[in-house]
């Protein structure tokens, strides 16, 4: 892995997350119907950060859960299976505007799996997608509603997102797959 470009640092990520928090509030006309679900694993801290921001802006409690999509993957049996992580959605999503959060949007297959998983928990009013980085190369008709940064990449590159909660620091870099 050769580091090619440094894209976002801690302050950049902080600004992006705050901007997206405002966009979500604006588009949904307030926090009342919102619940957040972060996709394991780096979507989880991002969802928590946005929810915390909105709590701070609006002075009201915001629910945030976590979702593991391992059991909904479309490539089970083809790849080495990742160790399943915890799903914890301990609130009702029926009739809510669910804000689904992930770090990188790439082929769209993870989001497809997440949509299936969420529907198993109830029928939300809407599901909106937040991603920190959209790197292109979609294989399914999926797009994000809120994007931190559009980052055109080639297929032999990888986007590496690091977050304090999972990796000890905040950064986004592009690396060459080696």
């Amino acid at each position, binding site marked *: 892995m050769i580091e090619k470009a440094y894209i976002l640092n801690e302050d950049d990520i902080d600004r992006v997350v705050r901007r997206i928090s405002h966009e979500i509030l604006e588009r949904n006309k307030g926090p009342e119907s919102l619940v957040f679900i972060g996709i394991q694993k780096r979507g989880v801290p991002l969802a928590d950060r946005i929810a915390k921001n909105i709590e701070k802006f609006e002075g009201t409690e915001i629910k945030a859960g976590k979702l*593991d999509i*391992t*059991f*909904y993957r479309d490539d*089970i*049996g083809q790849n*080495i*299976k990742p*160790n*399943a*992580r*915890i*799903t*914890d959605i301990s609130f009702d999503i029926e009739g809510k505007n669910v804000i689904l959060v992930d770090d990188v949007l790439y082929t769209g297959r993870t989001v497809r799996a997440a949509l*299936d*998983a969420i529907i*198993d*928990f*109830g029928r939300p009013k809407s599901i909106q997608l937040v991603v920190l980085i959209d790197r292109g190369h979609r294989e399914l008709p999926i797009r994000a509603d809120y994007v931190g940064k559009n980052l055109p990449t080639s297929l032999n590159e990888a986007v590496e997102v690091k977050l304090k909660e999972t990796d000890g620091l905040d950064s986004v870099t592009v690396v060459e797959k080696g």
Partner: protein
Amino acid sequence: MLNKKSILDADSLSLEDIKLILSNADSFLEISRRDVKKVPTLRGKTVINLFFEPSTRTKTSFEIAAKRLSADIINFSPSTSSLKKGESIIDTLKTIFSMKVDLIVIRHSDSGTVKMVDRFVDIPVINAGDGKYQHPTQALLDLYTIKKRFGKFEGLKVAIVGDFLDSRVARSDMNLFEKMGMDVTIVSPTMFLPEDFSAMKVKHCIGDVIEDADIVYMLRMQFERQDRKFYPSVMEYNRFLTLNMDRLGKMKPGSIVMHPGPVNRGIEITDEVMDTSGELAEKIVIEEQVTFGVAVRMAILYLILG
């Protein structure tokens, strides 16, 4: 993903396999608590339950586990099959195998049958109990139950109480318990011990261990497997081996009582203990074992077939 595709005995499970199964079980436990208790993970896979011996919990547990993963499961019952017409077990298996099944779960009253079956078919085989030999998935769910209660294994004191000789659960559990670094004592009369038990820590009365044990594991009296004369009398069994209220009360705080089920009330455990309520009831984790069994078997099916 599991190093070994079939699960035939506890001995050949590596420490990595065990840890992998236990850590995945957490995720499957969550699925069983949802309103919609189903994920599409094993869609299109076919599992067959081949039970040559009666079973409530293991058979149902595997059936529910497979269904919650969206696999198709067929319950094969020997009593209504061509085995009754004299078809050999191998020919029956060849027939089933020809129908493109993906995994076989099998229980049989003869020790070693499952190993033989595994040699005959090219698909994974899970031992759901064979004779007096092994019951590895029971041992794994027992480990998971202990992990949930204690959060660790190292140094826990376990007393395995009862008919050790005829018990496949005891054989599998003892192996895994020791593998995880637990301190195992067998409480059993000499007539229920294998010929060479010099390597085991042995006591003859439950009273000798009850105050010190973190886990008291009561074995089921294997009436169906005792081809020699039964233990002298129930009264004598009660005196040395039965868990009664008096003994339950002597157990230390945080300690638990396990049993693979079904319980012979009045023999391994008294009615009063089984039906007790209040603080002491917290110690009896027999129903938790059953709940966790589904999650552990889901993890096993997922790791083998996924």
